[in-house]
């Protein structure tokens, strides 16, 4: 039931955000001569209202279902407890990657990313880890940076490698 309350709250919350934004826009846009009958404001209010309604209906349906069956809703099985911490760790590394890229540049950020993520995925040897990280980063630089011409973040600490 706690899960259903959280889910319904999120939906109603999103709906209210949309309605508030619609009202804010409406107060600014709805001047004489505004030609758009629906407008970005009323559209946002409409979507928001639908989200609020669906959130409430969802909550009531979960309440009814629990009352009818008196059983908790089945969850996914087979997860290993403790693997959730690994998931959180990977998300943390992804966040670190995104934070580091504009600071140290793509090359160094990618090497650090691969070092950490290979470790967390179970590549135990640091030597193998370093080799994989450097080689894969170099391949990415060649493919994306050199061949496809994608301008990758250079960062404040700019590393210049001849040929790259």
């Amino acid at each position, binding site marked *: 039931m706690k899960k259903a309350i959280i889910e319904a709250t999120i939906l109603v919350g999103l709906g209210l955000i949309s309605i508030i934004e619609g009202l804010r826009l409406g107060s600014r846009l709805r001047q004489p001569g505004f030609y*758009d*009958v629906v407008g970005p404001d009323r559209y946002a209010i409409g979507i928001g209202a639908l989200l609020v309604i669906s*959130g409430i209906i*969802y909550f009531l349906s979960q309440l009814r*279902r629990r009352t*009818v069956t008196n059983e908790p809703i089945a969850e*996914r099985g087979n997860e290993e407890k403790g693997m959730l911490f690994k998931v959180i760790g990977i998300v943390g590394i992804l966040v670190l*990657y*995104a934070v580091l890229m504009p600071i140290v540049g793509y090359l160094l950020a990618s090497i650090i990313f691969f070092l950490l993520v290979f470790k967390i995925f179970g590549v135990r040897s640091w030597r193998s880890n370093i080799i994989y990280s450097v080689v894969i980063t170099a391949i990415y630089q060649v493919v994306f940076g050199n061949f496809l011409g994608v301008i990758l973040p250079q960062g404040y600490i700019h590393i210049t490698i001849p040929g790259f």
Partner: protein
Amino acid sequence: MGSFTIIDGFMNSLTLMNLWYCFLGCLLGTFVGVLPGLGPATTLSILLPLCIYLPPTGAIIMMAGLYYGAMYGGSTTSILVNIPGETASVITMLDGYQMTRNGRAGEALAIAAIGSFIAGIFGTIMIAIVGSWLAKYALRFGPPEYFGLIFFSLTMLITLSGGSLLKGITSGLVGIFLATVGVDPLTGSARFSYGIVSLMRGIEIIPLAVGIFGVGEILSNVELKVGRIYAGKLGRMIPRGAELRRGIFGSIQGTITGFVLGILPGVIPALTAFLAYDIERRLSRHPEKFGTGLIEGVAAPEAANNATAMAGFIPMVALGIPTTPVFAIMMATLMMHGLQPGPLLFQQNGQFIWTVIASMFIGNAILLILNLPLVGLWARLCLVPFKFLAPIVLAVSLVGVYAIRNTLFDVWVTIFFGVIGFIMKKANWPLAPMILGFLLGDLLEGALRQSLSASGGSPLIFFQRPISLALILFTVAVMVMTRFMKREALPPEEL
């Protein structure tokens, strides 16, 4: 438009240089399509400066090859690792990735290639025979007709909902809500930006889809302690017998759907791919098995997206109207070489047009010849230990989404929606409806607002236009029938 001219076209396109341009386009297109984030429009715009140095025929031949190559290439990562190479391959993931998990990656990749080939050849024939006549039909679609089409497309939310219709519709609504973030194209007002410039640009579909499906799937696999995507003996590489028949029929359906709708300006391959999947499911004797790894669930959308890619040439060439950004870039290339797309192009530059059309036949054959032998190699990717595959896929995804707009905002979007996708999967919320809602959101809003502005606020406009009325009535009928069939199939507690 006589057969004498198409033979000339074949003679011209079978020269060594034109064959080389065709091959290069298909190869680059397939390679680029595999990389998430770098869609055909981005890559064509990168190649545009090169085309100044190529002769006009060669430039268009190469760009065409690149475009439909990218359409096929996008399916490879969708099927193998559940990450869409480009928008049109999002729906392919539903059954394609499940086929990989069942050890049938080779068959999935092969039917994607075969379906794309069928669609490509059919599309090329249609361009040659009825090109300009079909283009005129496209001009009859105005905002009310588009609204009717989008309204019908929303019924796909029912298909994609899985067990819970309410969850599916709600997920779709969240997608529509996410599509409103950014600057409103009709009035220029910023919504949900809160003064942040990145938010004013809105959310792009690829970071959203890569996050929800790709990163979310990897995180789910980590929690489930997956060692390999598939850990058994790989099955056949090429489908045979009943499987092949079902795949080909699915491809034919997808081709027709994709082509008929693809001529309409603004109808993107992703939308027709979703529709083709939905139609295939409705026509199937076992609709409940879609999403578990059915070959027609791959064939139909793949054929549809390639057929739409082909269909888009018709308005561009016959009427001078580019239907998507990709065709706008191709038009720019033509104009750079002094050629004006439109009705006179056939009369004044017939040899050029027929050479390009003939090269499309050849290009689709090259695509099939190029990719079928590689199917076995690609399929073995799913045997790579997850501890090596996942980091590589994560990094490619993040670089790919960065490359779309050269902004780290898209990287953050991917990570954020990766976490959302993981949580939604854990909580048994369907993911595909959110993507569909997002795709349809902008189109729906534009069609609705333009129609009501034209009618002075009267919703009767949707019922006064015959095509729009027909689509709305058809939609209601389909929803009633589907709900009726679902009610009969589901136990009471699922309703």
